[in-house]
């Protein structure tokens, strides 16, 4: 079999010699024509640097290939070492023979140029097309990635598109000249899960159509299962394991691969949910730790000059649920579904338009019984305060003195979340993302709350760190009898921690019930679509079906009220909203 790309003993370093730092330590791999190699690793594993070395874009990021070969077989059969190729040759190859798509579609397109200009450029550069011809080619390229109304959209600028659409534009640009190799660097990480499925479907289909080879970089083994032929696992700049897809996934050899497969949350359709809480087992009718009824949050839109307001954004539109002591309710949904707004409304960070909240049967959320942990561990700790001041803040805010008992609690919680005692005198920048999130959890527990709202609390963490923080959360829940409202977009994570799941769509709960039921046998069409889109280790070499539905608008005219809810019951504690 002819090899398309053969990389041997690749070493890449950053910085100038006295302080040079090697990031990739001798990686080798081989991609036969038309095959897909997945490079899997966490942040700092060197997977992106490896990929950027292939088309030598790494040169522009301050990196340098210090040794090794990257042998690329051109269409005419000649072999070229990309490591030593001159820049002029590389310019002819980039975009024409080797293309690339990136993680952040929102920032990867030039904000001041139209989409048309940017798509046309590929044809101008490599096919010598100009004027109407280039424009026609650009329109065809957009058609090819299933962008409807392509003609008109050529004159749009990037900020007028959603993230998923922009990633499709990126793919259109990358595939414009039918490259022989596509490098996809975490192309779906920044996207919602259903949009991710659309992009994956598109890539799979275009790959079939053109027979190109692909390097697919990701941290998500579930995605790998769906698209790769070969897998390369990277850790700390080294290739720790590589081989055919099934061999690596079913019979991993290296401990790190085994760790990625077993310790990291993977979605299993509700088969690995927690079973340590059963609300039907409770005697009598217990009082919910948190009860939310008819929560509505609307943001009125500002009218124009002398124009009336066109209506309001219905971010949360009539949400009800209750949360029992010791229980985890996961609120899941995609961006813009209102899940974070729900969390923020419960904590009083946004003013609800209406709705009632009751904690342990009492109205309101006063009394510090409800606390919150935020998504971004880098933004949720004030960088200028010591950990001691940070942990003391909820206490002083509640009007208490920082006395011996409080200090003792700080020490106990630090110990409990697995941080050293000398942390108190240190500052947030001395801690890693996972450690900071542990600090945030400790801070939330300072006042001994009974309900903790976790807003995407593990989403910003690396996958193996995620697993550890989830374990910690479960331990703390048992120890302190906490109730969690766990807001997340990540079904694999939700499956690990939730007892019950509520699915939010366009500001409304469309399905709610026991985690095993909702994740295993979803009833509402949206839940089904959502769950089908979640990558799954056991779903190999998927023929993703292409689905280009867009998220509905949440803007409603003035005076709009949603129609009253009608629920369908699918067994004890499993409801779904009736669909029109």
């Amino acid at each position: 079999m002819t090899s398309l790309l053969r990389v041997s003993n690749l070493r890449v370093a950053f910085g100038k010699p006295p302080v040079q730092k090697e990031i990739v330590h001798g990686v080798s791999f081989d991609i036969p024509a038309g095959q897909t190699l997945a490079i899997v690793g966490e942040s700092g594993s060197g997977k992106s640097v490896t990929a950027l070395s292939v088309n030598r874009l790494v040169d522009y990021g301050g990196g340098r290939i210090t040794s090794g070969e990257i042998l690329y077989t051109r269409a005419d059969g000649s072999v070229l070492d990309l490591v030593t190729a001159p820049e002029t040759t590389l310019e002819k190859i980039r975009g024409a023979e080797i293309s690339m798509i990136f993680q952040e579609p929102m920032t990867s397109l030039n904000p001041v140029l139209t989409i048309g200009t940017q798509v046309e450029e590929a044809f101008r550069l490599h096919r010598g097309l100009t004027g109407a011809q280039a424009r026609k080619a650009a329109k065809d390229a957009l058609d090819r990635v299933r962008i409807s109304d392509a003609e008109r959209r050529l004159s749009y600028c990037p900020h007028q598109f959603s993230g998923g659409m922009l990633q499709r534009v990126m793919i259109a640009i990358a595939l414009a000249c039918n490259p022989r190799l596509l490098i996809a660097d975490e192309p779906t990480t920044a996207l919602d899960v259903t949009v991710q499925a659309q992009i994956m479907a598109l890539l799979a289909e275009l790959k079939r159509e053109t027979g190109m080879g692909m390097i697919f970089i990701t941290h998500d083994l579930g995605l790998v299962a769906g698209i790769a032929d070969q897998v390369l696992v990277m850790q700390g700049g080294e290739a720790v394991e590589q081989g055919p897809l099934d061999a690596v996934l079913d019979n991993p050899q290296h401990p790190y691969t085994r760790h990625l497969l077993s310790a990291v949350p993977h979605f299993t359709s509700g088969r690995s949910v927690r079973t340590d809480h059963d609300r039907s087992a409770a005697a009598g009718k217990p009082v919910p730790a948190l009860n939310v009824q008819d929560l509505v949050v609307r943001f009125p839109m500002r009218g124009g000059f002398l124009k009336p307001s066109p209506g309001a954004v219905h971010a949360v539109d009539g949400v009800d649920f209750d949360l029992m002591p010791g229980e985890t309710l996961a609120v899941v949904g995609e961006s813009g579904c209102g899940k974070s707004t729900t969390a923020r409304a419960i904590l009083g960070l946004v003013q609800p338009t209406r709705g009632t909240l009751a904690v342990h049967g009492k109205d309101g959320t006063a009394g510090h019984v409800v606390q919150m942990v935020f998504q971004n561990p880098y933004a949720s700790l004030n960088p200028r305060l010591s950990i001691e001041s940070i942990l003391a803040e909820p206490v002083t805010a509640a009007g208490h003195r920082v006395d011996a008992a409080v200090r003792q609690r700080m020490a106990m919680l630090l110990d409990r979340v697995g941080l050293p005692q000398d942390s108190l005198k240190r500052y947030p920048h001395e801690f890693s993302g996972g450690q900071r999130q542990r600090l945030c959890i400790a801070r939330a527990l300072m006042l001994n709350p009974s309900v903790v709202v976790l807003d995407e609390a593990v989403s910003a963490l690396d996958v193996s760190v995620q697993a550890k923080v989830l374990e910690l959360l479960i331990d703390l829940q048992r120890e302190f009898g906490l109730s969690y409202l766990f807001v997340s977009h990540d079904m694999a994570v939700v499956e690990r921690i939730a007892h019950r799941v509520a699915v939010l769509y366009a500001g409304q709960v469309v399905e709610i019930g026991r985690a095993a039921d909702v994740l295993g046998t979803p009833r509402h069409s949206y839940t089904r679509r959502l769950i089908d889109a979640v990558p799954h280790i056991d779903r190999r070499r998927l023929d993703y079906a292409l689905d280009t539905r867009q998220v509905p608008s949440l803007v409603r005219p003035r005076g709009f009220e949603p129609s009253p809810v009608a629920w369908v019951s699918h067994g004890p504690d499993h409801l779904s909203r009736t669909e029109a």
Partner: protein
Amino acid sequence: MSLVRALLRHPSGRIGGCIILLFLLAALLGQLGLTPHDPLQQMRLDRLKPPSLTHVMGTDLFGRDVASRVMLAIGQSFIVGFLAVGIAATLGTVLGLTAAWFGRLWDGVVMRSMDVLLAFPAILLALLIIAVAGPGTWTSVTAIAIVYTPIFTRVVRGPALSIKTREFVDAARTFGSSRRYILTRHLMLNLVAPLTVQVTLALAWSLLTEAGLSFLGLGTQPPAASLGLMLADARNLMEMAPWLLIFPGLTIMIGILGFNLTGDALRDILDPKTRRAMA
């Protein structure tokens, strides 16, 4: 004092810091009367002497020692500069912080007022104030302070608005932290960095403006020494006595350079975004 250490490690911070220290020393000696000669004493026999060992920067038309007058003038510039920038920074911080925090009407009132002040080219606004209040040291202080207040207001308001939406402020609200605590510990502490940079750059600018106003005869009034006045006097004598032009001119330039270099270094150290560009 990790900031001082970081400053000394930064190449332009080292140079800038040394210049500022040197100028501070010269100004202090000048104010304490420890100059090589009496800066005000007129020596008829020593008129327009070129630089020599006794008069390192030469003497002026009245036989006064230029070096001693330069030292005195630096002190004058610093007094005006520090006072004016101090006032502007305080006012600007209060206005910018409250505008960002309270938003709505107050924000509108403050920021539109600042827009009005910013609608005048800086020197022109200073001149307008001098036209009303008459020239003098205190008018210079007031004028520079008023000119710089809107700049500080903007420098504080922008970051304050973005810090206000950071998650640690949200967290503080969920704890029920007092407004005072949030404003002082969460907002102010995080504004120290941009303020420090701006104060340093504002000092550079105030040296320039003080000298400029004095050069026009609308700042410090004779017989007090000012770099601007010295330059104005040197204008008609430059061919005969170029040292009268060159030494005060270089002094202003190096002084401003010192603050600009330090300000730049501080920005590099305190702002992670530029740190990337340095790498």
